[in-house]
């Protein structure tokens, strides 16, 4: 019964969203109409929220007459996994996705004053987008479908690999990020429709965009961290197509945020900013399409159904083409007649936009090239890490060199290079020195790696000097940008060093035996067999000693879950500031020894720490009282 109520409320919400959208685009905007739109939207959102809450309640109380819940949950699961089972597959996660989209719209509706000239139109556009997705949900992937009259007595269980705290929050965070860019998109579209260049939509959406960017960054970082400790491969990024479709909006969004700050400060690059806002949201939608159409076979992708793919493709096409046609129509009007001065801050940011654009294009190519290739030549291929490394290393390197020069540049003013000033000379020598120390200490012979380490340190030192100047001479610098860019420097250094220093070895070892690897001595103490409520496990105890006297116990584990018979690896990780000792256990061999894989991963924590630092910069910007405008 509750499921029908939940279903009904979603249908009701769809109708109300449609109404709000129709009001916004068809009736002349008066105060009365804009209040009406605002209220209709609020009610529609509340209905959707009630519907979703009921659905969550059904999942939490094991209502297996609902097909989706029966297929993805199980009464033995702890309550939070019952709830998170909602977003473990297509229908439920789509539902959550839409609720989040509507939630952003609701908060926007709540926060922006009624007097804002494009508010009600933006809300209307949001409503129409939500309607499109709700219809997709109801028509092609209905989560409210029931198994009646006799429901199964228990559900099917969710994949144990996904029964993990990080994975409970990873998809929602990522979705919040994806759909958060619906706000800047809707505002950009409203701005284009109104066609009044006086409207400052950029300032309106800045904080919204940064918040969405933060969620997207956290979501991607969580996914990377989860893959690292859960999958047992020890990597933090696999260039999996589904990771790539999250990376593309992130790259575009980062460019967008940069471009946005220029448009706010000096009304330049407005064309770029508009185009990027359309690109970011289109890429988010594209991500949903790729994951949900089954066009790509991946660890993450949901079940195949061509009908879903066609609906999504059609709807996305309408959104993208409409917005681009509008963009082209208004192009001449928005185009700034003021030329951008050479070597001004604006010029550097527009170069930055181009670099980000190239990166997005390359990742896109890596994702779709195998599809085209198979279609044309009937031959399966895949694009792996070497391609991305070959593209990212040089582009990121050159982009960072521009970044270093941009530190001294000024807004709207030409900038004369003076390479002979103290901070530049000092930080450059220091970075060269440190890089050489690394080269000799670790015998790194990869030229890109060395250059990236150098550039990473240079960025950090340059900003340290700037911060020093800020404190001593009261020269203004943007603290958020300084922090985010220093985090980028740190990210480059950690990724580079991680890729050259990390190593692994698979060894076969018997109980009571000792093996050594690099500076580690590994003693195999014993093996324990045990049983928990929904799995049994084999756990090995290995005592690891380093040459400098440190010793610790690592207990990698293998689990076999009863419900699906699936085997999972529980890695054992000894984390320290500098490196992780990462251990997994394999099978037992005929002579009684066990295969144990040991990895030494350098600076891996610093990679995630850099990402968190970037987010912190964003969070500080959100909470800063200062209006980011001259």
């Amino acid at each position, binding site marked *: 019964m509750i499921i029908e109520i939940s279903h009904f409320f979603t249908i009701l919400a769809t109708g109300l969203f449609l109404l709000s959208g129709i009001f916004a685009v068809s009736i002349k905007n008066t105060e009365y109409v804009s209040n009406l739109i605002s209220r209709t939207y609020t009610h529609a959102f509340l209905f959707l929220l009630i519907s979703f809450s009921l659905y969550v309640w059904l999942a939490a109380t094991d209502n297996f007459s609902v*097909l989706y819940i*029966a*297929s993805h949950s199980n009464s033995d699961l702890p309550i939070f996994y019952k709830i998170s089972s909602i977003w473990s597959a297509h229908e439920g996660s789509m539902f959550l996705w839409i609720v989040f989209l509507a939630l952003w719209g609701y908060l926007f509706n709540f926060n922006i004053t009624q007097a804002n000239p494009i508010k009600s139109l933006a809300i209307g556009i949001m409503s129409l987008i939500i309607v499109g997705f709700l219809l997709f949900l109801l028509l092609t992937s209905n989560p409210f479908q029931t*198994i009646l009259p*006799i429901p*199964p007595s228990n*559900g*099917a269980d969710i994949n144990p690999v996904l029964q993990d705290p990080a994975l409970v929050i990873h998809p929602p965070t990522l979705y919040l990020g994806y759909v958060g860019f619906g706000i800047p998109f809707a505002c950009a579209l409203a701005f284009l429709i109104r066609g009044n260049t006086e409207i400052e939509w950029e300032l309106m959406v800045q904080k919204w965009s940064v918040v969405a960017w933060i969620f997207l960054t956290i979501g991607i970082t969580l996914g990377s961290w989860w893959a690292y400790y859960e999958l047992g491969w020890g990597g933090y990024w696999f260039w999996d197509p589904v990771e790539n479709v999250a990376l593309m909006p992130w790259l575009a969004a980062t460019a967008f945020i940069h471009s946005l700050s220029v448009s706010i400060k000096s009304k330049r690059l407005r064309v770029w900013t508009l*185009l990027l806002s359309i690109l970011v949201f*289109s890429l988010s939608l594209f991500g949903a*399409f790729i994951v949900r*159409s*089954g*066009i790509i076979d991946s660890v993450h992708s949901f*079940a*195949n159904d*061509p*009908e879903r*793919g*066609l609906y999504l*493709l059609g709807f*996305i*096409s309408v959104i*993208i*083409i409409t917005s*681009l*046609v509008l*963009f*082209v129509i208004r*192009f*001449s009007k928005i185009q700034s007649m003021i030329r951008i001065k050479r070597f001004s801050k604006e010029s550097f940011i527009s170069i930055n936009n181009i670099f980000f654009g190239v990166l997005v294009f390359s990742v896109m190519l890596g994702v*779709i090239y195998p*599809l*085209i290739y198979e*279609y044309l030549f009937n031959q399966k291929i895949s694009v792996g890490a070497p391609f991305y490394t070959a593209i990212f290393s040089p582009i990121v390197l050159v982009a960072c060199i521009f970044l270093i020069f941009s530190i001294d540049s000024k807004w709207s003013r030409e900038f004369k290079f003076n390479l002979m000033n103290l901070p530049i000379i000092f930080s450059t020598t220091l970075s060269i020195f440190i890089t050489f120390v690394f080269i000799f200490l670790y015998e790194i012979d990869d030229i890109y790696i060395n250059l990236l380490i150098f550039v990473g340190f240079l960025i950090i030192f340059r900003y340290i000097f700037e911060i020093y100047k800020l404190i001593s001479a009261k020269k203004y610098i943007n603290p958020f940008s300084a922090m985010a860019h220093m985090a980028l420097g740190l990210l480059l250094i950690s990724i580079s060093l991680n890729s050259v220093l990390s190593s692994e070895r698979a060894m076969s070892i018997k109980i009571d035996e000792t093996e050594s690897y690099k500076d580690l001595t590994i003693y195999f103490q014993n093996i324990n067999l045990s049983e928990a409520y929904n799995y049994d496990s084999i756990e090995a105890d290995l005592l690891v000693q380093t040459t400098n006297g440190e010793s610790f116990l690592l207990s990698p584990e293998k689990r076999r879950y009863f419900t699906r018979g699936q085997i999972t690896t529980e890695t054992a990780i000894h984390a320290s500031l500098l490196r992780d000792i990462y251990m997994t256990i394999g099978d037992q061999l005929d002579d009684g020894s066990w295969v144990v894989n040991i990895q030494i991963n350098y600076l891996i924590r610093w990679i995630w720490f850099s990402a968190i630092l970037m987010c912190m910069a964003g969070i500080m910007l959100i909470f800063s009282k200062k209006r980011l405008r001259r």
Partner: protein
Amino acid sequence: MKLLFKFFILITPILFLFMFYLLLTEDNSYPGADYDTQNFPIFELETLSGKKIVNTNINDKALLLNVWASWCITCRVEHSYLMYLNKQGIPILGLNYKDEKEDAINWLKKYGNPYKDNIHDYKGSLALDLGVTGAPETFLIINGQVVAHYQGEVNETIWNDVFLPIIDEKRIF
């Protein structure tokens, strides 16, 4: 220059989207379907009711072989459509896959039995020879030859698009 830019901005995404349209509507749009012909493998198993059954027992002119199990939720979804097909007079043979006999019999009692008989393949040996990778899967068998195979849930759309063309072509049922 401006015109070129405008043109470029519009045409690139349209090309992209069109390409995805082509990819999606490719002939093989049902990834679970294949039409490789193979002889029905030789086997010797028991039915759920304990009778011996071998490949020569499958001597119908045409029948549908459905791989199912009581632990499979998708089979539960597919079940009502199989009941419907059975009512339409289409003979369906069940292949109970890696399932405890008791569970399987209870399942059929509880939800209804669309099958004319059920092969109990506890170890999945026959399923392996057939190339089954999970449940549910459905095979169309004509005179002891597999002519169509679908992995996943059979519903009205799949029936119409994957099986009916062959059935019409061969004039069976």
